[in-house]
């Protein structure tokens, strides 16, 4: 394992920033702070002791919630931020594409900007000349290259910047949440480019919130949480972990007093998962709906299950009950009939007589889980489902399109 080709090696990287408390970017404030013995800033550490390696040729995804430190990490790799502690070793020329662009000058023409940018990235005029046609071609703005950049639409500017980044002949490409650049046609082109880049030997590091991109392009991924590495592994695993991390944060159902969705009558309503959070075909989804009601009027407790990938309601099932106090209703649903889903499970309570809604689990309080069964087709229900259709006289054929299931 030792002689793998490492493109990027991050060792015990810690990065802290000093954030000025008041606008102390002035000599006066600085002197006042010194005199008062105040620090004048607050320390903020978005990265804590991070170590990992990226091999040459990897398409490496970095995911994490907002503020988890992934952009700081990318900027540290790019050398824009100096490490507070630890080190970053990079082997190869590096082309960053951060914060949508590379700092164009609006007064220069597109052509001049390409060469200036090339120089900033370390490419000579002659080297840029060789890449120029390809860049312009990819950006699809050939007619505009002799015009000043200020006359470009914002989409054109981003397209040009993006084309420079991906067509520049660097060894390592750093991308910060940029795959949704340009119009649909351009995106399709980028999609194709990234899908085919894997064997080119280029190393790509992609910071993103889009799990679709991670699944589609990456061969390895990493989840960053709170400035630390939470997991490194296959894109599928990391994407699932990330999706669940987003759930967990929201999963604070129940015990508050006046939470959204509750009323004087129903003072508690929550969904308590019994089954695992990642389900396969062999599992059942099992949840307990717990609620507390203050009188004996008959009510209907509904359970709703949505699929957030396809944005459809899978089912809605009610049960008529009555009796005050605390109750627990268990609901079981086999998931063998379904393909991959991001499930949202929620509950609603209506009064039978008045048809008034007296409680519901808000979006925040809903329970979320995943079905991941690795069967390769896109529809909500799979071929093992009894309600699935069949070909007349021909057997079903399922090929593995797994990567595209979560497509754009």
């Amino acid at each position, binding site marked *: 394992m030792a002689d793998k080709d490492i493109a990027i090696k991050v060792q015990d990287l810690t990065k802290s*920033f000093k954030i000025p408390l008041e606008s102390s*970017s*002035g*000599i*006066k404030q*600085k002197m006042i702070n010194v005199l008062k013995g105040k620090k004048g800033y607050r320390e903020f550490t978005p990265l804590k002791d991070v170590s990992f390696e990226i091999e040459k040729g990897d398409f490496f995804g970095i995911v994490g919630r907002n503020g988890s430190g992934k952009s700081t990490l990318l*900027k540290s790799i*790019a*050398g*824009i*931020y*100096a490490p507070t502690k630890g080190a970053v070793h990079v082997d190869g020329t*590096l082309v*960053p594409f*951060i*914060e949508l*662009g*590379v*700092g164009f*000058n609006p*007064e*220069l023409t597109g052509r*001049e900007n390409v*060469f*200036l940018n*090339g*120089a*900033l*990235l*370390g*490419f*000579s*005029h002659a080297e840029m000349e060789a890449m120029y046609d390809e860049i312009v071609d990819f950006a699809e703005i050939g007619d505009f290259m002799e015009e000043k950049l200020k006359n470009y639409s914002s989409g054109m500017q981003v397209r040009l910047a993006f084309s420079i980044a991906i067509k520049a002949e660097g060894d390592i490409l750093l991308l910060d949440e940029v795959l949704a650049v340009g119009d649909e046609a351009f995106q399709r082109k980028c999609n194709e480019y990234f899908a085919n880049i894997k064997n080119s030997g280029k190393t790509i590091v992609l910071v993103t919130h889009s799990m679709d991109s991670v699944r589609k392009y990456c061969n390895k991924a990493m989840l960053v949480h709170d400035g630390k590495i939470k997991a490194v592994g296959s894109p599928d695993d990391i994407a699932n972990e990330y999706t669940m991390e987003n759930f967990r944060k929201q999963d604070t159902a129940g015990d508050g007093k006046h939470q959204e969705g509750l009323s004087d009558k129903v003072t508690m309503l929550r969904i308590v998962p019994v089954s695992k959070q990642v389900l396969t075909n062999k599992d059942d989804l099992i949840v307990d709906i717990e609620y507390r009601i203050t009188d004996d009027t008959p009510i209907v407790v509904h359970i709703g299950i949505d699929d957030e990938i396809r944005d459809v309601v899978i089912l809605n099932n009610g049960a008529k009950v009555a009796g005050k106090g605390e109750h627990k209703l268990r609901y079981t649903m086999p998931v063998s009939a379904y393909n991959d889903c991001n499930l949202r499970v929620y509950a609603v309570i209506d009064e039978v007589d008045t048809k008034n809604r007296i409680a519901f689990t808000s979006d925040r309080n809903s329970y979320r889980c995943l079905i991941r069964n690795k069967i390769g087709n896109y529809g909500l229900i799979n071929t093992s489902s009894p309600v699935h259709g069949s070909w007349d006289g021909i057997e079903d054929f399922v090929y593995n399109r797994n990567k595209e299931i979560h497509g754009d």
Partner: protein
Amino acid sequence: MKISNILSRRNRILLRELVITDFKLRYQGSVLGYAWSVLKPLFLFAILYVVFDYIFNLGKGVPHYPVYLLTGMVLWTFFVEATTNGLQSIISRGDLIRKINFPKYIIVVSGTVSALINLFFNLIVVAIFMIANGVDVGWQAILIIPLIVELYIFALAIAFFLAALNVKFRDIGYLWEIFIQAAFYGTPVLYPLSMVISKSELLTKIILINPVAQVIQDARYVLVTKESVTIWSFVTGWKVILPFVIIVVVLILASYYFRRNQKYFAEQI
């Protein structure tokens, strides 16, 4: 930033591209364009000449006073331009610094090189004035080259220091503007030093220790008139090298300060 890398291939490419960009953008949208880099100091010279030669009679007794004044003006303008460009250089490229890692000092150098190019144009004008004024040019005129090198190094050192300081304290731009105003009168650009000598010899010595004053007086000596008071003729002993000591000290401190702070520019801008 290793010393050996200062002029590596990559850095030369970048410097060249930045200087070209600066040059392209400087007079963008103006009708006279690059002519302004010569016209501006010429007009300033004309004003000062009228006010101080005709009205205040400052140039009395100085041979070729117009050329004498212009030489001083041109060198002073260069010093102001180089330091001010340098001062703004890091801040004005903040957007870039936050997106790409590249050697920051190249931006400071490119700002001062732009000023140097302007100086070159202006010196051509000085040469024209010298001919028109019938100045007797000797072989010593060639010494203007090391003098400009000296002034450039001093301006660059100050530019490094100010550029890095300006990232932390935005007051520096205003302070420097005021300081330059004061320094203009503390440097013998307008008035001949001989006027100061008659008042106080000590003050003359102090004025001459300022590297900018030393360079201006030396430049006048080699280009315009042997009557220009230089540090060589006026100060004796080891004190003659004081302007150079100042330059070296400023250069060392400024480089140290810049190198120490440059890695934090991206997060401080």
